[in-house]
């Protein structure tokens, strides 16, 4: 049974912590995150994981909607090129990511909010390092204000 998530209120003296949504592919990165967990490798608790069947499943909608919904950062992780469970899902996704990343930059949205990475099921250590790095990048950018609606 899943327990209701109880959000602990951060005291105001505490530093602002970014909230990052992570889309992990079922076959590599999700297992990689699992491995990082069972190997007791520390990585920041800022990420919330969404498991997707393949990085090719990730649509630009997901990423942009995450940003409009107020997430400070988005991390997308899939299998290394050539290792995709569905042969070429991540290769098609890579082209999509390349365009989205450049487009966000063009619109003046900090490209660091959206981070793409590869991590295999055996790379728990790499996963932790990259998540640490992504969190650091987003932390530096500060809260995501550009998509806030003004009333």
């Amino acid at each position, binding site marked *: 049974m899943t327990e209701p998530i109880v959000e602990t209120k951060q005291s105001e003296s505490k530093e602002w912590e970014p909230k990052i949504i992570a889309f992990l592919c079922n076959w590599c990165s999700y297992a990689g995150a699992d491995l990082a967990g069972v190997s007791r490798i520390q990585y920041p608790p800022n990420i919330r994981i969404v498991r997707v069947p393949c990085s090719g499943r990730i649509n630009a909608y997901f990423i942009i909607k995450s940003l409009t919904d107020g997430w400070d950062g988005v991390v997308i992780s899939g299998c290394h090129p050539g290792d995709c469970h569905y042969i070429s899902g991540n290769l098609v996704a890579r082209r999509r990511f390349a365009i989205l990343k450049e*487009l966000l930059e063009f619109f*003046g949205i900090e490209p660091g909010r959206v981070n793409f990475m590869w991590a295999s099921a055996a790379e728990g250590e790499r996963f932790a390092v990259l998540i640490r*790095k992504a969190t650091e990048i987003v932390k530096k950018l500060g809260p995501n204000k550009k*998509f806030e609606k003004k009333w």
Partner: protein
Amino acid sequence: MVIIVGLETENKDIENNMQEIAKGLLKEKKVDVIIGYKKGTLPLLSQPIIIDKEEDVDKLLWNNLCYVNLAKYLVPRVPRFVDSEKGNLKVGVVAKGCVGRGLIHLASENKINLDEITIIGIPCNGVVNRQRVEMEIGEKEILEVSVLGNNVIVKGKDFEKEFPFDEYMNELCKGCKIRKPSLVSKFPDLCVGECEEYSNIVDEFDDIAEFESKTPEEKWEYITEALSVCTRCYACREACPMCYCNLCFVDQNKPVWFGKTTDLPDIIVYHLIRAMHMAGRCVACGACSLVCPMGIDLNFINRKLEKIVKERFDFTSGLDPDTLPPMVDFKMEDAEEFMLEED
């Protein structure tokens, strides 16, 4: 007699050639219907016309106000192009460069069967930037537009203004490299009229490169200012030959990808996703910009997409129906410098 070589004569030449070809095609029954341009009911606009009789050929015209992309009428086919008994009719399309590109690109997406169409290629000499002209005229009503020599003359009730065409051409047309439809070697009969074979299109993106060198804040400011006037009327979507989805993402309500308001975040998201969908597909006809009632320069975003696609995947849309569009294709060695890596 003094021969004036200018826009006016050029247009007349194009028009006469086009009418002759159209007449021949209808006479020899090579096509059932022809879609082209006719004089619009409003000034500053030529509207599409579908003809199927030889005597109607005189209605076809070419001037510098023909900015509608006729490829739009083939996907999905308008009812006039389908016969209840014969099925799909053979359609002749009066095609400037970007209409030809549209048709060929749609064929590469398997939306058009190139056997069922004939391209009547015309060497386009550019279209007028309607918005800029309207802006200069202001509130006054335009009653008549004509082309004289190299100038576009706009007449109203108590004013008459001349616009030099070279300056008031649509920005995309100024740097256009594909003025005639591309020749497809697999379909030698596809193109009648003027077509050209293109090998490698070299385009400079100086304007885009200049914008890219700005800081994120400057870019955001410029983009938000430009887009904030958007009323989300979706005229850009309706005019675009590449927007043919049965259910557009903006109309989807399960799931709701983004809000229905005209608040800035929603507008930005609309234009972001629209741009994503245009990547590697935009044929640079500029129809979206020219129909925008608020005068938003969408070409600017489309040019950026063209630049990305050209630089990353070396692809120009609408030249060859056999090349896969870049967004459904992949290469093992695609650049991935944007991926996060360990130090």
